[in-house]
């Protein structure tokens, strides 16, 4: 009895899984490929010849049905017209069909069995397989999912589970990785290759599609390189701009620092005396009414308003009033001193006043020493 085996390329399995992952329901479709019987004869001297027949189903492609029950109804009856429409563009033969359903057991359902039998009759192919994939959640949070897959064939009313071997996964046959096709001297093969070879092969003998793929790969690489260059330039520009911005910020901060120092200089806590300026003002503007106070000297000359204090040790009177006026002030000073002695009670006040007068007369400044006092002293005279 033939032992059936199903062989499927990894890319087909991945494609099936990808299809179902992107679908929100069960999916089904048709499987294309070839089925063959291989007879293996083991010749041995110690025992009789052993003949092993292996039935191999090679899955090469699948056709997706975009909705459920596309080629059959709810009772499992196959619609041949729809089936032919699905297979219209396909040149390979149908060797079975598949279904993917989440969170169910790895068993054929009632309708799947019915559909399988009807499909066999409709396509007149007693050797058909049914591929079943059942994804499910492995962990409660859903961080890990698994997909179990199995193939079934029917013998009568019984459905047998057939092992599925995925090419490139543990099946490291040397023949699977041929880079160069084996030489064949058959005349028929040569005629076939001459007739159809130009469709698939270049003049150099390499597959056209492979060349096209390589060209596409080259183009892709070019575009990638170009994109990388653009990114690099952009990054460098950004780097330069950032450096400029940093430098500008630094300059701004420095300028701010200088300005603050200047502001500090413009308003010192203890203003310093600028005698040169003072002399200049005196020389230019001493006679200007703006610099005259309301205070008059004994000679009825207005006392200029100045900001210097006695601490400076400068005889402002001399400098301001000039020498001819100083002598007048001296006499007025003498008069004021005499008056102070006669009235002792008022002396204190007067003494204070006289002090202020003295101050006033001497310095000719102190408006804060009270202008009244200065006026009184003058009136008394």
């Amino acid at each position, binding site marked *: 009895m033939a032992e059936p085996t199903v062989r499927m390329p990894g890319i087909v399995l991945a494609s099936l899984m990808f299809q179902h992952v992107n679908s929100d*329901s069960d999916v089904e479709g048709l499987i294309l490929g070839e089925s063959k019987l291989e007879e293996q004869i083991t010749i041995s001297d110690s025992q009789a010849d052993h003949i092993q027949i292996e039935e191999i189903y090679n899955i090469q492609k699948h056709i997706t049905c975009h909705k459920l029950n596309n080629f059959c109804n709810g*009772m499992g009856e196959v619609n041949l017209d729809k089936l032919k429409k699905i297979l219209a563009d396909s040149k390979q033969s149908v060797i079975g069909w598949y279904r993917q359903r*989440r969170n*169910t057991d790895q068993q054929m*359902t*009632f*309708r799947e069995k019915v559909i399988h039998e009807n499909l066999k009759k409709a396509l007149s192919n007693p050797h058909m397989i049914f591929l079943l994939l059942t994804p499910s959640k492995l962990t409660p949070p*859903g961080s890990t999912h698994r997909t179990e897959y199995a193939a079934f064939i029917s013998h009568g009313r019984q459905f047998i589970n057939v092992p599925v071997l995925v090419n490139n996964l543990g099946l490291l046959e040397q023949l699977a990785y041929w880079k160069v096709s084996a030489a064949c001297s058959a005349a028929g093969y040569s005629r076939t290759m001459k007739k159809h070879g130009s469709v698939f092969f270049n003049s150099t003998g390499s597959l056209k599609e492979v060349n096209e793929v390589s060209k596409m790969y080259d183009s892709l690489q070019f575009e990638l390189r170009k994109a990388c260059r653009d990114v690099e330039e952009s990054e460098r520009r950004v780097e330069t701009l950032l450096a400029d911005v940093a430098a500008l910020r630094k300059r701004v901060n420095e300028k701010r620092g200088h300005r603050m120092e200047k502001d500090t200089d413009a308003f010192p806590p203890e203003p310093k005396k600028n005698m040169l300026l003072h002399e200049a003002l005196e020389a230019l503007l001493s006679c200007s009414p703006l610099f005259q106070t309301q205070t008059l000297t004994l000679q009825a000359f207005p006392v200029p308003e100045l900001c210097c204090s006695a601490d400076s040790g400068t005889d402002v009177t001399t400098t301001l009033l000039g020498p001819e006026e100083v002598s007048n002030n001296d006499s007025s000073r003498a008069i004021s001193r005499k008056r102070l002695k006669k009235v002792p009670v008022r002396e204190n006040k007067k003494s204070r006043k006289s002090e202020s007068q003295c101050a006033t007369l001497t310095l000719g400044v102190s408006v804060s020493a009270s202008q009244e006092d200065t006026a009184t002293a003058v009136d008394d005279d």
Partner: protein
Amino acid sequence: MNNMSPEVALHRISPELRPLLCSVVRNGRVGLDSTNCLRVTDLKTGCTSLTPGPCCDRFKLHIPYAGETLKWDIIFNARYPELPPDFIFGEDAEFLPEPSELPHLVQWDAGDPECLLQLVKELIQQYHQYQCQRLRESSRLLFEYDSLLEDPNYGRNMEIYAGRKNSWVGDRIVLVCPSFISIMSSLSQDTALDPGEDVALLSVSFEDAEATQVFPKLYLSPSIEHALGGSSALHIPAFPSGGCLIDYVPQVCQLLTNKVQYVIQGYHKRREYIAAFLSHFGMGVVEYDAEGFTKLTLLLMWKDFCFLVHVDLPLYFPRDQPTLTFQSVYHFTNSGQLYSQVQKSYPYSPRWDGNEMAKRAKAYFKSFIPQFQEGAFANGKL
């Protein structure tokens, strides 16, 4: 397996499928054992985990059948609710019914809430036929089955389970004892105990094909068991060695019929007894059991001495004598209860009719009361 209440299942199922599931979980009684209803577990979805719920569209349905529980997977598609469901028949992988013989599958109507339940019933019928087919593997069991099938009393109400290979579970034939069906309604029932349907099932298990190890069991619904006097009141005979079901089943049915008839007669007799007492004692009746007619209380007076008489009628009345409990309305015992005396031996005959029993009871009261009064004064305290 995760048990879930019907409400939880209905809450999690996809809204388009809810009406279908509702009739299954609420009205889902199938098969001979109508006391066990259908149960839903393992509710899952065929949608991706990113789909917001409720979107469950596949579950396991537990179906009582022939003493076993069938666990069938029912698979819908939430994205295609109009499509009929698909089924996985558990371990019965070889069970493959003919779709054309399932009318509710042929004309599936997703808008009909009863459609799924009816389809399940049709599948169970097909499953029954499948099991009968499997019986053909054993000639002896097939003979037993065919012989019962010919009898119209049993043939219509049988469930067959042909067992599993490599399992200790043998073949089993479960049938309804037909005599119960016709007389259930005449039994007085305490509906508070079991408001459900009444059922009596005889299950016969054959552990081997030669029928050398046969184990019968009788399953009664709670109300029937209570009416017959509890599980210990009824014992069915063992299956005779070399016997046949066609002989054994009628024997069991007859035994049960006799028992039920006896209980029914007892009911009528009790009712007659109570009626007679009501007639004789009139206003002296304080209260009585108007459903089961098992109790009666009288308030009587003899020479200005008032007393209560409680009459308790046993299940197997009139075979068993009623118990009379005299109770003083004045005197108490040390424990604070009313002083009373129980009388089980007094002039009585099961052959008397109710009227005669009432007369004799009245005469007995007159003769016993002086003695009771003395006892009450002597031993009780006011």
